[in-house]
């Protein structure tokens, strides 16, 4: 109830160092978070309530510090703090930069990122959870409150890592957050583990892409009072995916679940298949859930497939539709989409719209799954209207060979015209342009 510290309070840690409480940032179910100054560094301090600051919790945090962060997106504990004359304890972690939004901002449309940014954020989440699970660690409590993202770049930060433990540990203090828990955890048949993390991750990705919960359809609409027993029924006892191809009993209802209806057809068939599997078979059989690795790869496919319609809106060019002779239409203006040129690179196909960027992920082996370094960008020709080129923004000169056999070297800052059949040696990898 009472805050454990006042703003601008200076306290002495039991290790004899001075800790300046700068300001209160927020409180959750387990404790409070403060911005602090410690050892000349601006950090965040999570301070546990007396009931939650148990010996077990402290051991968990100490172990995490020893194991180290899976990647730089995790705001990982760096030091355990105890304070003279105070019960409980806390830990220090990096502070979230202010330009990062929380997922609630996305859900309430207080930020309006592009599809590209949202998908980049989902790729990063899947990639980071893959790295976490590779270390045999399990997150246990995926929810809106535990992530931040940069609305322009799609960069992600993962906080509240203090419930992370080795996947085999079953006495970790947390069960998860309603709406995000896997059915077997909701029903009390299992404690959170790696498989329940995968279910929760899929819920989060669904929320971010569809702005809706995958199990809230007709059944949810029929519930008058949405309390815990209702949630247990909907998310635990009888979870029915709203787009289950075999069971139509829980379809989204117009007027109540409009986001699901609006977003679902926009995405590619491959993305819809993954959601369908994870929320139908995967709801019952944890081993059938989609792995973070598959999510990451298919979301990269989705990002690469972005096609800008003449009306200016982002769409996804679905190769599956071409195979089944279904036209790709813009979700906004309903006009047929004409894909721009495509770059085939590393078994990926990237649609080259004006302003499409190639990142470390595309051109450098050691930057795989990273979308930070922009190494190339599609730019308009400075004079010739309708012509576009690929501009080299990397330090490595490219070798370009056209269909007609002409060869050029493209240094940093230079561009070459995008034409069918052009081969590009980017240094580590080779790509080919296809048009039409």
């Amino acid at each position, binding site marked *: 109830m009472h805050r454990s510290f006042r703003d601008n309070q200076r306290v002495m840690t039991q290790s004899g160092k001075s800790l300046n409480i700068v300001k209160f940032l927020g409180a959750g179910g387990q404790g409070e978070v403060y911005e602090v100054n410690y050892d000349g560094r601006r950090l965040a301090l999570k301070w546990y309530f007396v009931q939650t600051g148990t010996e077990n919790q402290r051991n968990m945090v100490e172990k995490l510090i020893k194991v180290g962060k899976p990647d730089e997106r995790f705001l990982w504990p760096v030091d355990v703090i105890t304070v003279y004359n105070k019960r409980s304890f806390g830990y220090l972690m990096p502070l979230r930069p202010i330009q990062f939004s929380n997922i609630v901002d996305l859900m309430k449309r207080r930020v309006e990122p592009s599809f590209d940014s949202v998908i980049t954020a989902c790729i990063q989440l899947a990639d980071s959870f893959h790295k976490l699970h590779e270390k045999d660690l399990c997150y246990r409590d995926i929810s809106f409150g535990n992530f931040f993202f940069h609305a322009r770049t799609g960069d992600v930060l993962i906080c509240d890592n203090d419930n992370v433990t080795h996947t085999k540990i079953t006495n970790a203090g947390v069960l998860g957050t309603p709406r995000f828990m896997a059915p077997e955890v909701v029903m009390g048949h299992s404690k959170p583990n790696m498989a329940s993390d995968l279910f929760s991750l899929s819920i989060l990705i669904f929320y971010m892409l569809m702005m809706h919960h995958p199990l809230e359809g007709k059944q949810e609409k029929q519930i008058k009072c949405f309390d815990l027993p209702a949630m247990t029924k909907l998310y635990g006892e009888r979870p029915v995916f709203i787009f289950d191809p075999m069971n139509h009993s829980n379809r989204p209802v117009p007027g109540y679940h409009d986001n699901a209806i609006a977003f679902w057809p926009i995405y590619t068939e491959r993305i819809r298949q993954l959601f369908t599997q994870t929320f139908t078979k995967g709801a019952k059989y944890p081993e059938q859930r989609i792995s973070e690795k598959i999510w990451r790869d298919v979301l990269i496919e989705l990002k690469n497939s972005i096609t800008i319609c003449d009306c200016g809106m*982002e769409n996804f060019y679905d190769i599956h539709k071409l195979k089944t002779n279904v036209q790709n239409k813009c979700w906004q203006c309903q006009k047929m989409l004409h894909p721009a040129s495509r770059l085939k690179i590393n078994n990926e196909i990237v649609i080259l719209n004006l302003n499409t960027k190639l990142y470390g992920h595309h051109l450098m082996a050691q930057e795989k799954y990273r979308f930070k370094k922009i190494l190339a960008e599609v730019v308009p020709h400075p004079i010739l209207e309708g012509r576009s080129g690929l501009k080299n923004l990397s330090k490595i000169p490219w070798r370009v060979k056209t269909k007609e056999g002409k060869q050029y070297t493209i240094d940093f800052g230079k561009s070459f015209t995008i034409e069918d059949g052009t081969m590009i040696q980017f240094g580590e990898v080779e790509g080919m342009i296809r048009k039409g």
Partner: protein
Amino acid sequence: MKMRPGGELATRPLEFIWLADCSISMRNSGKIDALNEAIRKSIPHMQEVAYENPNAQVYIRAIKFSSGASWHIEDRVPVESFEWEDLEVKGVTDLGAAFKLLKDSLRVSEMSDRALPPVIVLISDGQPTDDYKAALKELMEEPWAVKAVKIAIAIGRSANKRILKEFCGEQGIEVLSADNAETLVEYIKWVSTVVLQAASSPASQASEIQTMGINVSIPIIDDDFEDIETISIEDVW
């Protein structure tokens, strides 16, 4: 410019209803002033919780009771525009009249057909002066009253906690005792933030924290007031 279709995440309404004792005894030791101040102070915290909550649209209402009961805030006010007008004291403690008024507003026909559990906070310092028992029984025949999260705050030593507990229910949340203005502020803040959040968008569930026998998991109140001196009610109100 909107770059994606659709709108905000779908929400459900949540009614948060204050049930405030305005009997003459609330004037003693400045209790009514403390209550007005505590509710007013809680508004920004309540608005902050609502701002961060993607699942609920929170509406506020308030009933006052003394000799009879009436609406202090009758129309459902969205929390974003919630303001608190001071309550004034007069008369006796007709809690039963307040329950009757509450019952009428919780009728299925009066409520939205899809909502989150309402949160009802009863604050009293005394003994009911009417037949509260029959009114409470009738109130609890309304499904929304049964589903509601019911919290009672007893102000001072003369409040009848047994009766307040009847309102919360045997399996419900224990009555909170506010013996000084500061504790009252903290309890009011707790119900308008933690309880509000739990009723609409439950936070992370801890396995060692026992949920009470109700339909909403309310985190344990952290009453670790170690650095607050205990001040007697006569000194502080």
